[in-house]
Structures are given as structure tokens and as C-alpha cells.
């Protein structure tokens, strides 16, 4: 509490003399300590641990401290790994493209076609609420819809469009991508909506006065200004898809693999060093992707 009490002493050098005060810099450090400690112990240290363990030896029961590159050689030397990485990247690209299109149009509709702020907020909340409920429940909720005797198949069979139920709706790549789009679209909507709301409406009017068509306004004014939001949404969606194992496992019915699912299987076989080597490779890949995106957008400015 002592730190909080001193928080607002910084502005304009108005520090008074009547009572003892901690120097401003010290206050900042005190306020930053809890976050630093928590992230240090539960994020940095575990990642360092993974990097260390990825060089260890192991058998069916235990890990042995060592310095072996065997885990990496096994991971990177296996064509299964490469296929799994390609498959995960395929999901990432598909889900990214679909959520980007849906996310942009939903955000554009909310920001430019809804006239009152309260209505905007209500519609935005309607989009947000499902994302605050359980991912697993939302995933399995597709089963009665897509399954062999599910809603879509019965509707199609009963209306005579098809004679046999379609098999590829559930337990397929289609189901995986559909469920991921369902789970992750909001992460695209929110940042794009945020940037669109900050576009000065007079820019749009100026473009119109200068004779631009709606399409030209969209492609020359709005979309370029929405790029930072799209970049942040991309970071969210790509990292979530790259890390996903439960959607792939449940919705593909065990027929497809992702990198994280491969890791999870190694973990359930207690092959921690192998999983750790995989984790390091995946982490490097994800961080490179994020670093690439951060080159085109400064997150601190967009908040």
C-alpha cells in the first residue's frame, strides 16, 4: 500500500517537501516488481528450464542431466516432424485468412455503419460473450451439428439434396478449421475494431468530397489505416493456432496432428526432453513470426 500511496507524485516536478517521499524512480521499480517476479518465475525460468532439459538424456522413467543434441537430431531428422509442422502452418494460414476477412467486415460494420455508441457497444458485447465461455464446450458443441446424424446432415438428407450423410463434416481438416475460426475470430475483431474506431471520420468525408467512391474510400483510406489492428489480430490468431492441440485432437478425431499435439503425446509418454526440444523449435518459430509482424506495427502506440 505504501507504494500506491506515492504513485502520483511524478507530474511536473511538484513534489512537496513536507513529508518523506521515496524517489520517483524507486516507486516505479516497486510497482513493477510483482509483475517482474511472477513473469520471471512462471515464464522466463520455465522456458530456460525447457531449453536446458532439451539437451538431457531420458529413458522410460527418468531424465538424466547431460549435453546431447540427440533430441534435436531426432526431432528435426524425422519426416513426421516436418509433415506435422507443415500441417500446423496450413491450419495457421487458413484460419488467419478466414478470420482476417470475417474480422475486418464485422469490425467495419460496427465502426462505420452503426450510428450510436451504445448500439456499437451492445453489438460488440454480443460478439464477445461467447469468447468468455469455455473453449472445450464451444468445440464439442459442433459435434451434434456436424456429426453423421447431426443437424446439417439430417437437414440435407431430409430435404433430398443428398442421399447419404456427408462424412467429411466432422473429424476432418474442415472441422478443425471451422472450430478454430469459431474459437479465435474475436481476437481479430477486437484489435481491428479498436483501430477503426480511432479513424477520424473527417478523413472519410474529405475523401468523399474529393470524389472517391465507397470502394476507393475503403481501399485507399480505411484499409491502410486498419493495418496495425490487422497486424495485432494476426499475432493473436497465428500464435493461438500454432499452440493449439485440443481443437486438432477433438475435431480431427485423432486423424490430424499439430506440433503442440505431438508435444502433448510425447509428454504423456514422459519423454520430456524430446517434448522440450520440440518446444524450443516451436518457440523459436513463433517468436520469429511475431518479431516479423512487430516490425510493421508498434504495439505500444496502438494501445
Amino acid at each position, binding site marked *: 500500500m505504501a507504494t500506491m500511496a506515492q504513485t502520483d507524485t511524478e507530474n511536473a516536478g511538484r513534489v512537496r517537501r513536507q513529508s518523506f517521499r521515496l524517489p*520517483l524512480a524507486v516507486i516505479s521499480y516497486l510497482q*513493477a516488481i510483482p509483475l517482474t517476479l511472477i*513473469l520471471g518465475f512462471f515464464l522466463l525460468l520455465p522456458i530456460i528450464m525447457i531449453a536446458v532439459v532439451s539437451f538431457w538424456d531420458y529413458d522410460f522413467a527418468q531424465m538424466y542431466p547431460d549435453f546431447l543434441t540427440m533430441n534435436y537430431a531426432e526431432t528435426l531428422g524425422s519426416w513426421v516432424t516436418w509433415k506435422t509442422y507443415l500441417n500446423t502452418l496450413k491450419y495457421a494460414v487458413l484460419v488467419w485468412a478466414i478470420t482476417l476477412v470475417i474480422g475486418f467486415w464485422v469490425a467495419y460494420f460496427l465502426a462505420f455503419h452503426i450510428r450510436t455508441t451504445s448500439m456499437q457497444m451492445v453489438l460488440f458485447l454480443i460478439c464477445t460473450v461467447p469468447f468468455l465461455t469455455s473453449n472445450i464446450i464451444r468445440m464439442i458443441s459442433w459435434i*451434434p451439428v456436424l456429426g453423421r*446424424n447431426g443437424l446439417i446432415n439430417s437437414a440435407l438428407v431430409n430435404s433430398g439434396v443428398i442421399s447419404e450423410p456427408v462424412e467429411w463434416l466432422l473429424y476432418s481438416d474442415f472441422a478443425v478449421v471451422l472450430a478454430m475460426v469459431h474459437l479465435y475470430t474475436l481476437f481479430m475483431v477486437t484489435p481491428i475494431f479498436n483501430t477503426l474506431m480511432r479513424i477520424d471520420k473527417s478523413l472519410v468525408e474529405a475523401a468523399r468530397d474529393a470524389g472517391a467512391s465507397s470502394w476507393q474510400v475503403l481501399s485507399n483510406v480505411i484499409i491502410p489505416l486498419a493495418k496495425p489492428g490487422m497486424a495485432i489480430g494476426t499475432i493473436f490468431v497465428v500464435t493461438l493456432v500454432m499452440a493449439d492441440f485440443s481443437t486438432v485432437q477433438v475435431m480431427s478425431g485423432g486423424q490430424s496432428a499439430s506440433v503442440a499435439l505431438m508435444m502433448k503425446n510425447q509428454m504423456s509418454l514422459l519423454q520430456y526432453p524430446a517434448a522440450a526440444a520440440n518446444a524450443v523449435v516451436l518457440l523459436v518459430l513463433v517468436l520469429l513470426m511475431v518479431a516479423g509482424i512487430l516490425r510493421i506495427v508498434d504495439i505500444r502506440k496502438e494501445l
Partner: protein
Amino acid sequence: MYREKRSREFYLLAIFFAVFVLFLYGPLSAILILSFQGPNGGLTFPLNGVSLRWFANLFETQAVGDFGGSFRRSAMLGIMVMLVTVVVSLLAGLAFRRKFIGATALFYLAVASLVVPSIIVSLGIGVLFSQLGLQPAWYSSAFGAHLTWTLPFGVLIMFAVFNRFSPAYEEAARDLGASSWQTFSNVVLPMIAPSLIGVGLFGFTLSYDEFARTLMTAGSFNTLPLEIYGMTTNVTTPVLYALGTVTTIFSFLVIAGTLGLIVHLNRRRQRS
């Protein structure tokens, strides 16, 4: 563009938006309806009668494992994560208002916490605890694992809030003779209270629904999402849907209560 008649673009986009909302809520309502499946009904439509049998089933321990216990653990963990997230994010948000050495590094550490795949966090904390000789448990290792997911959200929200926060109010309060603590508790805190409640809502719901980060860190007792995930592979009756309905309604109640509180606070502030 604004006060004109609605364009064709508006109607097309309105239909698109409606389809999107249907896409979001449609499958959830399928689960809701099917959880009232009759005693002989299966996992898909049609409904074979209507009953509350599967809800009753939830409370028989042999049918679904430990539903009550895992729900209590998840709710408790959610509350712990919520409280810590609110306090720590607020402090970090205040710290970031000034420049200090390491601020950029700390900011990017928070961003990293958001983008590091959750299963890696889970594996790392699991291995770390076993190497330190600590017993993983939902209130220690899973608690920390959840914080790595909720704190970056909280910090980014507070960062955005203070970006838009004018120091003029604090200066005015100080000119009127308020102490630092009075300025904070009577001026700053009421103004950012709705955002803090929002951070709390994020903290609770993200933790309550978190699954991947709990996988390796929960220790010997399951949280609710782990329990549900286990059920997806071995339960073949609508009791799964009943559980889904109950937890979703619980989430809806939490969200509605929080939003109600935020609206109430905003109204009261506008009146005064």
C-alpha cells in the same frame, strides 16, 4: 455517409453480421437443447423426450467423476487469479506511466507471455516444479501458469487506460490540497474502476476456462476444464452436454453480473 439513407452496403453487411452471430451462438444452443435429452436419447438430435435426467446425473459421482470438487477448485482458482491480476496489473500500469530502466524489456516480457504457446508454459512449469522437488498443485503451479495468461491482458488494458488518462485531474486534486493517497483513492481509482472490473472479469473467466496451461500443472486434483476434456473421450451420454450447459450458464451469470456492475458505476459517476 451518416445521416443519409441506409445504403445497400449496410444491408449486405447487416446480413453478414447476423450470420456471424448465428455462427457464434448456434452450436451453443444445440448443446443447451440436447442437455434436456430424454433418458433414452443420445448425443445427437432428434430429442427423444425431455428430461432433467442428465442434470441429475451430474451430481452422481460415479457418472462423471468429481464434478462438484473440480467446480469448486476452478471457481476458487479463478477468484485468486482475478484478485492478483487486478492488483498486479494496476501496479504495473502505474509503473509504466513513468520511464524507468527496463520498462521496455518488461513490456515485451508481458507481450511474450501472451504469444508463448500455452503448452510450452505448461511443460516448463511442470518440469521446473519437478526439478525443484515441489509438488505441482492447482493453487501453486497452475495458479502461476494461469497468471502468465491473464496478466498480459491486464497489463495491456491498464497500459491503454493510462495512455488516455489525463494528468490534469490529479494536478487539480493536488492543487486543492489532496495528499498523494487521497488523489489516488478519490480521483484516479473511481475513474479507472470500470476498467479494473473489466480486468477482473478477464482474469476470472480466462482462468476458469483455461485448459492447456493447467494440463501439466494441476497436480493430483483436476480443474473443471480438465474434467470436461477427459469426458470428451470417454463419456458417450448427454451428461457431457448437461455439464456444458451448467458451466456456460455460470459463465453467462458472471459476465452479466460484472457488466451490470460496470453500468451501475458509470451511471453513478455521471450523476455525481
